[in-house]
């Protein structure tokens, strides 16, 4: 198991966002989390990426307990994420956003960066090559010097995926990567996600509302409802699970 969530609970005051959610994710699989609005999907992702600390339970990543690890150290282990509402650095260009994704892989400090001579320059150029590979992969060559604030929504989502990829993560958390996209953009995004998993062996946990996409690309699916995990299994199993149908459609009136 690459990621092991053991009975994770999260409370905000009296509100329970997650209660005793246990999930195991294998290396290299595409794991989808679905559920109605407010079910706690994003809270779960925030617990893994460190923006929230679970009230109880344990999160183990590659054999290491990361429950209380600080947020900025988790990328060093190989955890990267994208956000539901795009959180790009809107005054920076696409290139700069992706270069920022290389931050933890680089070393130069204030002085060497300010002098921009020798080592710092070589480092920038070296990482630029990695970033260009990602730009190539995501097919965003033509916008690389545009400020991301000026880009269309679908492209911003793609740039955000690119920024997460620049970390060369072993676990990629995607929070609604296809929200608000048209079907063509969704298709592109689904293709990118499959390629990432296939070519780089990256484990992907994704939250998505589009059931068609979820059932098509994910290896396993977990369903959350009111902070509880009500089902887990292959897409086929989930589709005919009575509890899931009830959560989404309500009970039958008899």
């Amino acid at each position, binding site marked *: 198991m690459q990621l092991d969530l053991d009975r994770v609970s999260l409370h905000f005051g009296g509100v329970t966002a997650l209660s005793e959610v246990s999930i195991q994710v294998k290396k290299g699989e595409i794991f989808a989390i679905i559920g109605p609005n407010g079910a706690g999907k994003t809270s779960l992702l925030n617990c893994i*990426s*460190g*923006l929230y600390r679970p009230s109880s339970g344990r999160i183990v990543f590659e054999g290491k307990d990361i429950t209380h690890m600080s*947020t*900025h*150290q*988790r*990328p*060093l282990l190989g955890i*990267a*994420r994208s*956000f539901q509402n795009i*959180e*790009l*650095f*809107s*005054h*920076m260009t696409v290139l*700069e956003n992706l*270069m*920022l*994704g290389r*931050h*933890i892989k*680089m*070393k*130069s*400090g*204030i002085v*060497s*960066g*300010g*002098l*921009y001579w020798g080592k*710092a*320059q070589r*480092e*920038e*150029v070296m990482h*630029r*090559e990695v970033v*260009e590979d990602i730009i190539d992969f995501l097919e965003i060559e033509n916008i690389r010097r545009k400020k991301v604030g000026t880009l269309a929504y679908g492209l911003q989502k793609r740039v955000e995926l690119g*920024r997460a990829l620049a*970390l060369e993560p072993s676990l990629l958390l995607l929070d609604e990567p296809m929200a608000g996209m048209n079907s063509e953009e969704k298709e592109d995004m689904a293709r990118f996600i499959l390629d990432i998993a296939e070519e780089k062996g990256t484990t992907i946990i994704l939250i998505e509302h589009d059931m068609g996409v979820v059932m098509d690309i994910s290896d396993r699916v977990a369903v959350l409802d009111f902070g509880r995990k009500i089902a887990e299994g292959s897409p086929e199993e989930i589709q005919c699970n009575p509890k899931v149908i009830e959560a989404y459609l309500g009970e039958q009136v008899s």
Partner: protein
Amino acid sequence: MRLRNPFVMESGVFTTNYRDDMAFHFPVLAKIRVAVILLLLFLLPFFASTYFVSIANLAGIAVIGALGLNILTGFTGQISIGQGAFLGVGAYTAGFITAKLGLPFWLALPAAGFVTALVGAVFGVPSLRLKGLYLAIATLAAQVIIEFVIVHWETVTNGVHGMFLPAPGIFGYALDSDVSYYYLVLTACIIMTVFCFNLFRSRVGRAFIAIRDRDLAAEVMGIDLFRYKIYAFALSSFYVGIAGALWGHYLRIISPEHFTIGVSIQYLAMVIIGGLGSVMGSIYGAVFITLLPIVLRELSGLLANYLPNIEAVILGLKEAVFGITIIVFLIYEPEGLAKIWQNIKDYFKLWPFSY
């Protein structure tokens, strides 16, 4: 091979490796422009009056200070109203080292930078928890505390009596005239501007901008917010400390009323009018604010020939003009003079076919 004809506008970037692509792109025309400006700056004392050189000195010192404030407020997004006090820390540190310890100026200048950086870093600690308006109040506290210390720590600062500083000298050359001091200020200005430009195209500078734009995302990308905010405070204060040391040794007499909150506001005005988050903007803003009262005074002197009472009116308006300028910029061009200049350049890029 790059562009061949120096008299045409460049239509694109034609580089074949990433190293060239990441260098500053100076079309031939821009290269000539930069060279001419630098040459003019170095030759300025030969054709300008001493009075003009002294104004240039003040402007140059303001440029360094404004760069410092812009690193913190414009690039990292941490508002600071403690600028005036930090200038004071730099000026008094340098003054203490040269006047009281009798050590040479070339030692006092960097020392002032480092001491101010340390003080700035300490007052930057609240920035982890406080944002926006609340951080502004915390830096206001820094201003008040430091001013209090300057007034009351008399063994070091001479309190309200102020401190007389010796004429600075570097390696045996006395910098006691406006012209000789001008070259010191100009050199410092160029070095610190270039450093700033480089910083913001490399790793740490990018992290600063990321914190300003989206601190949450920056943290998830592995940036230690606390550490980088402290870095920003320290680096900004280093610049301000250098500016303070240069200012103090230029005035040759420093007292607490040189480093009041009024100065802080003046520097804030510089970066707002010049352009937040723009290196060139800091320069434009600093020069603009330094020249504003002087231009107003000259103007009133000229008009006095025709309207004898205008002088009193204009001098009374000075403070108002200052405030109005800030308001006008905030409303009509929040990105400041740097953006206006960029717009002009963009217009002429396509001129005369601007469609």
